[in-house]
């Protein structure tokens, strides 16, 4: 028992800080693009998915406001984008288009999943966090986790609206839902693995 306590305390010590830094930042992989900080595969994947979600949201928003822009999508049968995007469920409280809500969500998600935001949270190997940036790290983790959980909840409502209430599926909306789900899964896994693990702390 005493040995187990000892081992626990060792995990929290400097030795474990080093190992957690390695675990938290498989960061050492290069992004391959000079202007991007290298942050690892998972953060990069969340950002690319976020960029896709943002692009699709922009397209859906344009199609909502510009009647000359038609979604490239079937308009017959179960796969029917227009039926979904012109349904009463396409407006929140009858005033706010879901497409605009999605756009706002993805603007935030792209920012918080950007390599720069991840880098704030996970300094490169050897980097150190000051006390204030430690708080920032926690804030970013929480904001990212809460936003994807809320986003996933809203996506579940939209799937309910499509499948049960409208009886039609919008492919473009579904592609955004899938992107949101993948981001949700990645963030939840990342948070589960890294939550509470000591970050490298600065002393100066």
């Amino acid at each position: 028992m005493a040995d187990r306590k000892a081992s626990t305390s060792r995990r929290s010590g400097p030795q474990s800080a080093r190992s957690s830094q390695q675990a938290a930042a498989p960061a050492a992989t290069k992004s391959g693009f000079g202007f991007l900080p290298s942050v690892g595969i998972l953060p990069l994947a969340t950002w690319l998915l976020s960029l896709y979600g943002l692009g699709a949201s922009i397209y859906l928003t344009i199609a909502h406001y510009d009647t000359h822009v038609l979604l490239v999508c079937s308009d017959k049968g179960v796969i029917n984008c227009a039926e979904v995007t012109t349904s009463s469920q396409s407006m929140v409280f009858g005033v706010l288009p879901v497409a605009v809500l999605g756009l706002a969500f993805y603007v935030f998600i792209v920012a918080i999943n950007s390599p720069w935001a991840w880098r704030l949270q996970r300094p490169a190997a050897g980097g150190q966090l000051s006390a204030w940036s430690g708080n920032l790290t926690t804030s970013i983790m929480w904001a990212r986790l809460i936003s994807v959980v809320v986003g996933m909840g809203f996506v579940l409502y939209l799937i309910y609206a499509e499948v049960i209430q409208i009886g039609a599926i919008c492919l473009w909306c579904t592609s955004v839902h899938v992107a949101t789900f993948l981001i949700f899964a990645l963030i939840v896994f990342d948070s589960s693995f890294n939550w509470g693990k000591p970050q490298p702390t600065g002393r100066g």
Partner: protein
Amino acid sequence: MGEAEPVERMNAREGIGALQADEPRVEQRRRLVPAVASVLVVVAIVIALIVVKTLGSSPSPSAGASATTSQASSVTSQLTGVPARTLDLVGKGQTVPLRATSGQKLLTFGAKPQVLYMGAEYCPYCAAERWAMVVALGRFGNFSNLQFIHSASTDVYPSTPTLTFYGSGYTSKYVAFKPVEMYGRVARGTSYPKLEIPTSAETAIMAKYDAPPFVPSADRGGFPFLDIGNQYLTVGSQFSPGILAKLTWSEVAAAIRNPASPIAKQVDGAANSITAAICKITKGAPAAVCSSAGVKAAAGDL
């Protein structure tokens, strides 16, 4: 015994070492649980929704006879593809014209002007008006999943052949169409079952426009209520449901395509009237429809 003790100590140390080596793996498994659970919960909810939709009853008219899917598809095609020449020959026909409001803000949904219909499946006047509405709206977009039914057998003009907008879809690049079938067609006791509940905005529109000064006080709150962008209204059908009595859906559809038939003069005349009103709120789009002779003739009565 003396030699056994160091062996036991060694085994104990090895055991602790193994425990320490295993701990990260145990820790990883422990951390994996909430993540996997969260993802599984999401997947389970989506699967449950699909299963509920698949096993549950799809929106369809309640009890009573309705057309088979192939019949419905055939009749829908006939209705939404009434030849332009037929509609032009009928012109304004023999129908009650729509009422124009004046100085009212255009009703829109998103960026499109909106057509709002509020009615009930039991209602024979709604039964009549829907034929004209489908012919008219079919010129601006596409309907899906229309079901063919009869109005209530216990009301006036019993069992008038018609279709229902309940569970249907409509897409158009020019206009948004929002139908609300508020009640079913088979009475339960002394009332009809509720089908769709209008939104508060729709209720407010009906309260305002389905009442004087926009309609005679005798028609206040009547069905069907057809609001074309808050610019043109009709309460009640534009022709008598009696002309459709005892006909099958296919017979009605065939008659609508024959410009010489009395049914075409009424249904197509009403359709041209509705089309002309929709053209006003779409600012003449699409030109091919709005500049047709039949629509121009009907526009004179608006």
